[in-house]
């Protein structure tokens, strides 16, 4: 990575084609910038899952999407953010799911629990965020902006290879 920061931002209506296109862009761009296809895939998967959630649970069509990769002394910090308007009942569920993930001692154990739960669910898989945490090895946070938009962020950090 030659520059200190890479920033990609877009606003769009996240239909299935747009989500897959964004995933491929994130994969190509971050794999190249970080020189690590595995990190690129993890970011791309997380982008897809976050945008899928925004499409499924959002109140209005448009989402704001951001990918930011910062070089640090120790390595890199890569952050994905998806921001959109949502429904109150979905927000409570989202906060609850993210809290459970944040407090999990073992993300893989929680992911396996989520996989078992999904077998009995009728509404959505409930897997996306747990997948980001376990398969993507990323940290999740959620916040509400001044404009009342919900923001979900997924972050990964990597140290430099010795």
């Amino acid at each position, binding site marked *: 990575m030659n520059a200190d920061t890479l920033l990609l931002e877009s606003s769009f209506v996240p239909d*299935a*084609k747009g*989500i*897959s296109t964004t*995933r491929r862009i994130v994969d190509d761009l971050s794999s190249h910038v970080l020189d690590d*296809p*595995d990190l690129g*895939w993890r970011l791309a*998967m997380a982008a*897809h*899952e976050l945008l*899928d959630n925004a*499409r499924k649970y959002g109140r209005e069509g448009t989402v704001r999407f951001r990918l930011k990769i910062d070089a640090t002394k120790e390595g890199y910090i890569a952050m994905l953010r998806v921001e959109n308007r949502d429904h109150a009942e979905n927000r409570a569920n989202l906060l609850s799911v993210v809290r459970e993930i944040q407090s999990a001692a073992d993300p*893989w154990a929680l*992911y*396996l629990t989520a*996989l*078992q739960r*999904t*077998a009995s*669910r009728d509404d*959505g*898989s*409930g*897997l*996306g965020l747990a*997948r980001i945490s*376990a*398969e993507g090895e990323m940290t999740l946070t959620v916040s509400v902006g001044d404009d009342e938009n919900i923001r979900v962020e997924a972050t990964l950090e990597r140290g430099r290879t010795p």
Partner: protein
Amino acid sequence: MSEGDLAIRDVNLEHFSAHAEREPTKIVARLRGNADQLVRDELQRIISELHTEATRLGVREAVLDVRDLYFMNSSCLSVIVRWITGQMKCAIESYRIRFTCNANLRWQKRSLQAMATLGGALVVID
């Protein structure tokens, strides 16, 4: 329907396709492309028909060949999870579920590792 016929309909979409064939002791369903929200219902149908046929024909294995499947989102993963957990609940010993993978496709390593952990001896990863 004769025993030789396979009642699993192909899928031929712009970015996703599926085709199943019977081999002597197994049924192999080859998935190609991108398994996202647009194809979830088709994937559900394929898996349902694969299960029905594997049971009817009494094969030892139902194989999902995903070597050319470039991505699977969590909605489609949940279809696979329901299939695996449904088979785990079967009282009668039935067929095994085998995934034929592509090590160069990074989603497969982690996602299918999760499927193998979930399914135990029922699930085999190649």
